[in-house]
């Protein structure tokens, strides 16, 4: 069978990817806007199209716990959630990477309550960026499908869980054409997961997840075993290794399926750009239109899209930003009392680098607030003017905010 293109939502694209990856255990609890992902998977399990175990659980905490248990014995696992569901899962969100389990979780990005709001921003996944998962952000539904499949290969190569993040409603509920690879293409790209260290064998009993004290010490068999800090250093090293593995997997996917997404970062009209607009997710895709419109006004604008937010692609960002006049970062999240997370990270990675541009931050789209192309263009024009006036730093710009009246 050849690949077929169908018009589908982002949630359908995520579910289709999980099916193509031949996941064996799915555990999930419904939450808007993620629910249609696991509804679709449940329907395929019910019809027999997807020979997997679907475990209906009573909470997101339990959903991740089931994935942890299943991944520990070597199953390929999948879950998906959003916002408060992710928050409710928080304890196990840390356990999965600490235990080095290759779980893939889709996040249909949604605003955190309170106040209640089911609409899009990226505060949920940004709030768990430090937990030790690989985090990938998608710009359209095709990228959701392709990235979710790629996530399994990344996860299984590095023994790290991967979060595939996509904007709730804007992608999760918007239909667009998606080319669905055929099963053979994906089977060639993603072989079955067979890792001897994660298979529980009664003939070779192991103590999984024992208390690990501060210092290295001998285990029960007298073999020197790492302490907590060594285990964490190895975990961190695996995340850094992902900086090479993510592009390599994207490239292998291109060989198998014919599409790739830039690996760690992607760019649009960047080569000769003075002004660089930076964002992650569908907003970055919309920024490509802003860049094109501003070029018609004679402003040399390009877009730098962040696909991998963790690990943070320091070198890829530095080499694309040195020599520019200004970088303007659009965050759909905020570290309350400071600024947008991507903005902080980008400024930090450019600090002290010769020829680095000033980095300005803008916060937008919180709780589903619409961001028009004109507002994005206005923000870019403002950053250009401020940089031309010699500003090296400035307060975060809030786009389309109406506090007065």
């Amino acid at each position: 069978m050849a690949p077929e293109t169908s018009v589908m939502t982002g949630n359908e694209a995520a579910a289709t990817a999980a099916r193509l990856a031949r996941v064996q255990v799915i555990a999930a609890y419904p939450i808007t806007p993620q629910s249609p992902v696991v509804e679709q998977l449940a329907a395929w399990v019910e019809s027999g199209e997807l020979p997997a175990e679907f475990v209906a659980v009573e909470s997101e905490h339990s959903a991740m716990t089931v994935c942890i248990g299943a991944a520990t014995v070597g199953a390929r696992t999948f879950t998906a959630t959003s916002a408060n569901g992710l928050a409710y899962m928080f304890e196990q969100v840390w356990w999965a990477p600490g235990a080095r389990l290759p779980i893939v979780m889709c996040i249909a990005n949604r605003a955190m309550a309170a106040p209640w709001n089911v609409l899009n921003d990226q505060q949920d996944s940004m709030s768990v960026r430090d937990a030790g998962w690989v985090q990938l952000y998608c710009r359209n539904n095709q990228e959701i499908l392709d990235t979710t499949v790629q996530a399994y290969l990344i996860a299984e190569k590095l023994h790290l869980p991967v979060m595939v993040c996509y904007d709730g409603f804007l992608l999760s509920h918007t239909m667009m054409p998606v080319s669905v690879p055929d099963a053979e293409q994906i089977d060639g790209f993603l072989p079955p997961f067979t890792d001897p260290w994660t298979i529980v064998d009664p003939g070779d009993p192991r103590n999984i997840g024992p208390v690990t004290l501060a210092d290295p010490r001998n285990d029960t068999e007298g073999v020197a075993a790492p302490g907590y800090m060594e285990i964490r250093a190895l975990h961190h090293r695996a995340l850094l290794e992902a900086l090479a593995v993510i592009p390599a997997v994207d490239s292998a996917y291109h060989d198998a399926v014919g599409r790739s997404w830039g690996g760690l970062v992607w760019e649009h009209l960047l080569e000769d750009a003075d002004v660089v607009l930076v964002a992650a997710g569908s907003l970055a895709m919309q920024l490509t239109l802003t860049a094109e419109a501003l070029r018609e006004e004679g402003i040399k604008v390009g877009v730098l899209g962040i696909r991998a937010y963790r690990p943070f692609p320091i070198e890829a960002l530095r080499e694309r930003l040195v020599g520019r006049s200004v970088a303007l970062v659009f965050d759909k999240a905020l570290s309350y009392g400071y600024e947008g997370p991507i903005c902080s990270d980008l400024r930090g990675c450019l600090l002290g680098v010769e020829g680095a541009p000033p980095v300005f931050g803008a916060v937008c789209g919180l709780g589903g607030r619409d961001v028009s192309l004109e507002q994005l263009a206005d923000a870019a024009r403002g950053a250009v003017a401020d940089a031309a006036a010699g500003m090296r730093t400035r307060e975060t710009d809030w786009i389309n905010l109406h506090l007065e009246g």
Partner: protein
Amino acid sequence: MHEIRWHGRGGQGAVTSAKVLADAAFRSGFAGVTSQPSFGAERRGAPITASTRLADEPLRVLSQVSEPDIIVVLDESLLDVANATAGMKAGGTVIVNSPKAPSEFALRDDLRVVTSDVIGAAEAANLIVGGQPMVSTAILGAFARATGLVTMESVEAAIAHAFHGSAAAKNIEAARIAFDCTRA
């Protein structure tokens, strides 16, 4: 690019209409199609909107449609209640589910009004669910006739993809009847 905004009441199936149209438009040759509901909590009977864009290139804009070329009104009371024509581009097309003639609607002079008795079409095809004639797919026949942007073949293929068996057949029949009774 063609920007389309749907106006319906919660439960009428405007979101289904928008989805099936996106599929039909892709089948009719548009490389770029998006359809999205207005985001938020819907209630049965409340005015709702949905947005569809059709283009020759893949689409990169995800905002709701605010300056439509075409609006499709599943309940004619929404022309007043929801100010459905707000923001419409000059020369735009208003497709209304109504047994009335287009001339009976007093809208902006620069808009073209097309009507189709979609409820009648659904009833004629016996497309009744829970005692209510279903208009969500039948309206696509009126859309195909009024705009020429999608072919009836692609509308029928998209309906057959979204529904199965006798449900698909009834929905296709209703769309055909609505196509035939569309008046400009």
